[in-house]
């Protein structure tokens, strides 16, 4: 028997939602056994808090602020990462010089540069940007270098035998050839940028005593250190997860658009 497209789609959604819904039900059941006035979070209370925070506007503005920092830091890191990656991938001498430096910084977690960043840049947006840019730089540069050095040599040879200049080869052969890898790098970078901003805002929130930094991470810090509102913390965590999921979906769509030759196979 054949199913309609809608029916098939509904089946997939149903199948993928079974476990999450089951877990939520178990969580709610567990919470309902607790004495009244318990601070433990439950799905229903989290939902209530969510709408409360939305109506106050604070949740949206904090999310927008964090997202803005992520986009800015990510853009700076991507621009530098792609440019450096292209140079490293095409010139062995540039690569041999930069590789040891990049590889020795790469294991240093973004959080580990936070002390220096705070001392130099303060507890506001510049520090958050620096952390985000630092975190997202590495996936971009490493994947760009990988992509560039794995471009099919035959294609470059073919372009040479058609009288194509070196710059044109870089733009018309190397760049599109490396694009799938570059896009993968930026997608990974966006993921770490988002985790880095939350961690940075949390940490900066600690440093400035819940003061001026803003962002969703700092909002969490306030709920943790001052209000001790577990439901609100869960709301923040959920929003962080949902935003990350949305960004990843956007990147996947972008990938389909930008590299159609990969997705129609």
């Amino acid at each position, binding site marked *: 028997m054949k199913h309609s497209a809608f029916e098939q789609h509904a089946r997939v959604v149903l199948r993928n939602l079974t476990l999450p819904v089951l877990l939520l039900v178990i969580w709610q059941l567990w919470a309902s056994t607790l004495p009244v006035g318990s601070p433990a979070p439950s799905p229903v209370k989290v939902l209530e808090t969510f709408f409360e925070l939305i109506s106050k506007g604070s949740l949206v503005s904090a999310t927008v602020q964090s997202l803005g920092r992520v986009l800015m830091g990510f853009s700076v890191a991507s621009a530098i990462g792609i440019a450096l990656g292209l140079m490293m991938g095409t010139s062995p001498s540039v690569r041999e010089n930069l590789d040891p430096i990049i590889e020795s910084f790469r294991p240093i977690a973004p959080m580990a540069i936070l002390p220096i960043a705070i001392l130099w840049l303060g507890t506001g947006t510049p520090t958050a940007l620096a952390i985000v840019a630092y975190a997202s730089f590495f996936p971009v540069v490493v994947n760009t270098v990988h992509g560039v050095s794995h471009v099919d040599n*035959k294609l470059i*040879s073919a372009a040479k*035998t*058609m*009288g194509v*200049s070196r710059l044109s080869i870089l733009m018309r052969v190397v760049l599109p050839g490396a694009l799938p890898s570059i896009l993968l790098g930026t997608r990974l970078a966006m993921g770490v940028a988002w985790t880095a901003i939350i961690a940075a805002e949390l940490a900066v929130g600690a440093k400035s005593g819940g003061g001026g930094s803003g962002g969703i991470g700092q909002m969490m810090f306030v709920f943790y250190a001052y209000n001790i509102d577990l439901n609100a913390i869960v709301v923040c965590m959920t929003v962080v997860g949902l935003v990350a999921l949305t960004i990843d979906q956007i990147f996947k769509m972008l990938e389909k658009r930008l590299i159609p*030759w990969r997705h*129609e196979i």
Partner: protein
Amino acid sequence: MNIHVNATKLRLTGVTKSFFTPRTGATTLAVAEMNLDIQAGEFICIVGPSGCGKSTVLNMIAGLDQPSTGSIEKDGKAITGPGADRGVMFQDYALMPWQTVEANVGFGLRHGTPGQNLSSNKRQERINHFIDLVGLKGSENKYPHQLSGGMRQRVALARLLANGPDILLLDEPLGALDAQTRLILQSELLRIWGETSPISERKTAIFITHDIEEAVLLADRVVVMSSHPGRVREVVNIDLARPRAGTARTNPRFGLLVEHIWSLIRDEAYRAIGGAQSETVSHENPH
């Protein structure tokens, strides 16, 4: 411009090529002392066992590789690097996977030297003309991965011709195709090369193949090479009348020429597959 019949188009003088392998520290001689004069409008096929340096010779003529010693001259001038005057068709076609058929055919015209003095209208005309010539009308907006092997081969051929090269360098272009497609494209290649036109209008072509029958069908002369190191064993003159497409295979002379070339490389071919040396004469291809 005046093209003289029987003018030497390409001259290889004492060409050797050796490769250094850093891992083993050994130097291997891929091509040893090659001398060859190729006339304008001539169709040359190079046959020989794997590892005889066929592709190396082609790459050196293309300018992608430099000879270790000796010189390669085109129209009396030394070849120093790649250029659009020598178009190459690569074994696996080397089409840009991110570009449509139309963009692949137009790649050299739009981004390279061949289209420098053409208006964009003229370029488009040229692109359409060659897409038409190889029978790809209607597939302009497809990507290479959506095409069959035979169609990709046609795209590569159209791209090669659209750039208007002086010399066509073809590196086993039909090697990956099934037998039927191969037969069809051999005839088409002869047609497009200009088998029915006077020699002065033909392009100089150098075609590498494993297939002896293919070489005899296409070539004016077949350069038979042997391996380790790669050297010219014999240059066989193919004195079959043109046009050959369709009819040449039935000529008894065709079989004799195939037989002769096979006899030149048979021993090596058997050694290459590790089999015993055969005394019986066979028409099989040395694959």
